[in-house]
C-alpha cells in the first residue's frame, strides 16, 4: 500500500516539475497557460490519489477520508481547468498574440 | 438584576446599535430614540454602580462572563469585567457626555446629513460601546477588540463628513491600526512571559517576579507607544486635527472629548495596575522621554493653535496640547501628578465636549467657524458666546473652574518631581490659550456689526435650537460644578483608585 502511495506521489511530482519548466520556458502566454492548466491539474490529482493510499491504516483504506479526498479531486478537476480557461479568455481579450514560427512574439 | 449591571453598561449601547440598524430599514425615525434609550440604560447602570461601589467593602466589582472565574492554579480562565474607583468615574463621564452629545446632535445630523443618516446613530452607539468597553474590561486582549470596535466606527463617523474627511479618515485608519498592532504586539510580549491575559493576574505576576525581564519591558514600551498613537501624542499627532475638523459636527462632538481620553485611561490602567508605579520609576529613560515628549506636545499644540484661523482647528490643536498634560501627569509617577492626570481626564472630557458643542451651535446657525467672521457673535448668540468664554476660561485654568484644579495638581507634581520644563510648558500653554480667548472676545464682543446695514434696528438674536443649547449649557455649567466638587472627587474616588506611591 505504501509503495502505491509513493508511486503516485512521485509521478505527480514529476508532472509538477514538467509544469514548472513549461511555465518558465514556453514562448507565449497561451502555451504557458496550457502547461499550467494541464500539468497542474493532473499532478494535483495524482498527488491526492497518492494521499488516499498514504492515509490508509496498515493496508486498510480509510474510506471516509478517501471519499473526502475523491470529492476534492472532483472539485480540482472542475475548478482548475475553468480557471485556466478564464485566464485564457481574458488574455485573448486583452490582446495577447500567439507565438509563431518566425519567433516573433507580437 | 443588580448583579448584572456591569455588563449592561456595555451591552445596552451595543443592542441599541443593532436595533437601530434593523429599524433604520423600516422606521428610520425610530433609530434615534432606540439609540438614546440604549445610552440612557448604560448611563443608569454606571450611575447605580457608583453607589454600589461606595457601599462595597473591597472597592472593586467583578463580573465574570460565562461564569468562568478563578480556577485555582490556572488563574481566571474567562473574560472578566471590573469596576473600581478609577474606571467608575470615567464610565459615568463617558455615558453622560455621550448621552448629551446624542441629544445635541439630533438636529445637526438632520441638517448636515439630510437623507444620509442611516446607520449614523448605530455607528455612534457602537463607538460608545467601544469606549465603554475599553474602560470597563479586565482583560488586555479584550481591550484590543474594544479598541478596534471604537476605531472602526470612528473611521466611518469621520468619513460622514465628505470631501477632505475621506483622506483624513484614511490617515487616521493607518495610524490607528499601527497603534492597535503595536498594542497587540506588546500584549504578545507580555503574554510570552506570563501566559495570562487577565489584568488582575498580571498585576500579581509582573511587579513581583518579572521585574528584570527584557521581553516584559519591550511589551511595556510597545503597549504605551500603541496607546500614544491612538491618543495622538506628539510625534504621532498628525492625523487628529484634520480628522476632527472635517468630521460632521455630531461626530466631532462625540469623538473629540471621549476617544483620546479613553486611550489615556487605558495607558494609565496599564501603567499603574498591570505594571506598577515602581516599575515605571525603575525605567527612568522612558520616563524622561515621555515627560520631554509631553512638554513638546503641549507646546506644539499651543503654538499651532495660535496659527490657525478656524475655531475647530484651534480646538483640535488644544486636544493635542491637553493630551500632553495627561500623559505628562501620569508619567510624573508621583501622587499629585497622577491625581492631576486622572482628574484631568474627566475635566478635559467635559471641557472639550463643551468646546465642540459650542462650536457645533455656532456652525448650526452661521455655517462656518472662521475666527474672522465671528464678529458680533455676543450680540447674535449671547448664551453660546458666554458658554464659549466659560469653556475657554476653564481651558486656561481660571480658579472656580475644573481646569484650575487639574493644573494646580499637575504643577505641584512637576515641582515635586523637579521637571521644570513640564511646569513651564503648562504655564506657556495657559498663556497662549489666554491670548486666543482675548482674540475671541475682541472679535465677538468689541467688534459690533452695524445692524442698520441690513435694515434692522438691533442685531437679531439667533440662538441655536433648545435641543442643542441645553446640553451645551449643562456641560458648561458642569465645568464649574466639577471645580466646586473637586475635593469630593479627589478624596472619595481618585485617591482611593491610585495605589500607594513610594515617597521620593
Amino acid at each position, binding site marked *: 500500500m505504501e509503495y502505491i502511495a509513493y508511486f503516485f506521489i512521485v509521478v505527480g511530482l514529476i508532472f509538477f516539475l514538467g509544469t514548472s519548466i513549461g511555465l518558465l520556458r514556453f514562448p507565449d502566454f497561451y502555451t504557458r497557460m496550457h502547461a499550467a492548466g494541464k500539468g497542474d491539474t493532473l499532478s494535483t490529482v495524482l498527488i491526492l490519489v497518492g494521499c488516499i493510499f498514504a492515509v490508509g491504516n496498515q493496508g486498510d483504506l480509510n474510506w471516509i477520508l478517501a471519499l473526502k479526498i475523491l470529492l476534492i479531486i472532483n472539485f480540482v478537476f472542475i475548478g482548475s481547468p475553468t480557471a485556466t480557461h478564464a485566464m485564457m479568455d481574458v488574455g485573448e481579450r486583452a490582446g495577447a498574440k500567439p507565438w509563431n514560427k518566425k519567433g516573433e512574439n507580437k | 438584576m443588580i448583579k448584572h449591571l456591569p455588563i449592561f453598561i456595555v451591552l445596552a449601547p451595543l443592542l441599541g446599535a443593532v436595533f437601530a440598524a434593523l429599524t433604520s430599514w423600516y422606521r428610520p425615525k425610530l433609530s434615534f430614540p432606540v439609540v438614546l434609550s440604549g445610552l440612557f440604560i448604560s448611563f443608569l447602570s454606571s450611575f447605580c454602580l457608583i453607589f454600589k461601589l461606595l457601599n462595597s467593602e473591597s472597592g472593586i466589582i467583578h463580573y465574570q462572563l460565562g461564569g468562568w472565574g478563578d480556577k485555582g492554579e490556572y488563574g481566571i480562565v474567562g473574560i472578566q469585567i471590573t469596576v473600581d474607583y478609577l474606571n467608575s468615574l470615567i464610565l459615568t463621564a463617558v455615558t453622560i457626555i455621550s448621552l448629551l452629545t446624542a441629544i445635541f446632535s439630533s438636529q445637526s445630523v438632520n441638517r448636515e446629513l439630510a437623507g444620509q443618516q442611516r446607520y449614523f446613530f448605530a455607528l455612534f452607539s457602537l463607538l460608545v460601546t467601544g469606549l465603554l468597553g475599553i474602560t470597563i474590561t479586565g482583560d488586555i486582549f479584550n481591550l484590543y477588540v474594544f479598541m478596534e470596535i471604537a476605531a472602526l466606527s470612528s*473611521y466611518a463617523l469621520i468619513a460622514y463628513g465628505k470631501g477632505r474627511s475621506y483622506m483624513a479618515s484614511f490617515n487616521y485608519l493607518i495610524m490607528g491600526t499601527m497603534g492597535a498592532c503595536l498594542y497587540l504586539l506588546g500584549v504578545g510580549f507580555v503574554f510570552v512571559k506570563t501566559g495570562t491575559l487577565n489584568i488582575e493576574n498580571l498585576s500579581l505576576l509582573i511587579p513581583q517576579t518579572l521585574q528584570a525581564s527584557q521581553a516584559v519591558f519591550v511589551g511595556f514600551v510597545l503597549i504605551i507607544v500603541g496607546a500614544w498613537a491612538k491618543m495622538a501624542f506628539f510625534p504621532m499627532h498628525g492625523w487628529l486635527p484634520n480628522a476632527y475638523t472635517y468630521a460632521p459636527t455630531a461626530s466631532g462632538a462625540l469623538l473629540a472629548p471621549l476617544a483620546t481620553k479613553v486611550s489615556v485611561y487605558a495607558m494609565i490602567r496599564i501603567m499603574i495596575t498591570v505594571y506598577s508605579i515602581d516599575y515605571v520609576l525603575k525605567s527612568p529613560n522612558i520616563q524622561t522621554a515621555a515627560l520631554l515628549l509631553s512638554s513638546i506636545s503641549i507646546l506644539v499644540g499651543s503654538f499651532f493653535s495660535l496659527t490657525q484661523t478656524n475655531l475647530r482647528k484651534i480646538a483640535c490643536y488644544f486636544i493635542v496640547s491637553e493630551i500632553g498634560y495627561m500623559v505628562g501627569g501620569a508619567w510624573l509617577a508621583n501622587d499629585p501628578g497622577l491625581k492631576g492626570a486622572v482628574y484631568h481626564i474627566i475635566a478635559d472630557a467635559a471641557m472639550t465636549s463643551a468646546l465642540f458643542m459650542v462650536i457645533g451651535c455656532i456652525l448650526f446657525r452661521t455655517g462656518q467657524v472662521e475666527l474672522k467672521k465671528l464678529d458680533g457673535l455676543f450680540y447674535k448668540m449671547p448664551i453660546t458666546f458666554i458658554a464659549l468664554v466659560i469653556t475657554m476660561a476653564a481651558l486656561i485654568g481660571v480658579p472656580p473652574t475644573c481646569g484650575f484644579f487639574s493644573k494646580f495638581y499637575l504643577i505641584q507634581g512637576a515641582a515635586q518631581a523637579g521637571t521644570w520644563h513640564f511646569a513651564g510648558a503648562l504655564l506657556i500653554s495657559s498663556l497662549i490659550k489666554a491670548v486666543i480667548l482675548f482674540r475671541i472676545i475682541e472679535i465677538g464682543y468689541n467688534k459690533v456689526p452695524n445692524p442698520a446695514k441690513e435694515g434692522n434696528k438691533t442685531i437679531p438674536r439667533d440662538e441655536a435650537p433648545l435641543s442643542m443649547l441645553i446640553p451645551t449649557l449643562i456641560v458648561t455649567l458642569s465645568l464649574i460644578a466639577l471645580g466646586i466638587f473637586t475635593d469630593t472627587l479627589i478624596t472619595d474616588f481618585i485617591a482611593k483608585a491610585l495605589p500607594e506611591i513610594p515617597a521620593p
Partner: protein
Amino acid sequence: MEDIIPKFNYIVVVVLMMTGLWSMLAQGNLIKKCIGMAIFQTGIILFFISIGAKNDALIPILTEGANHTFDNPNIDKVTNPLTQILMLTAIVVGVATLGVGLALAQKVYQQHDSFDEDEILNNQTK
C-alpha cells in the same frame, strides 16, 4: 547558529512586521499601505501562533488514541488553543480594517483621481 535556529521564527516575525511598518509609513500608494498593514498583522499572528506551538504536538482537537483519551488528554502533546483563538479574532479584525481602508481609498480616488499621497496632498492644497 545553535542560538538562532530555535528562535528563527521570531526573527522572521520581526522582519515581516518591520517591512509592513515601513510600508505603512513610507509608501505613497494607498493600496500598498493597505497591503503593508495586512502584512504587519500577519506578522503579529505568526508571532502568537509560534509562541503557542509545541514540539511533536497534535492539533487541538481531541481524539481517542494510544496515549490519549477524551477525559485525560496528554497536555504536552496538544497545541495551545488559547493563542489560536486570539489570532482568529485578530484575523477577522484585520480583514474588517482592510475592507474599511479599501473603501476609504476608493472614495479618495473618486475625488482626486489618484492613489498617490503626494498628488492627493497637492490637490488638496490647491
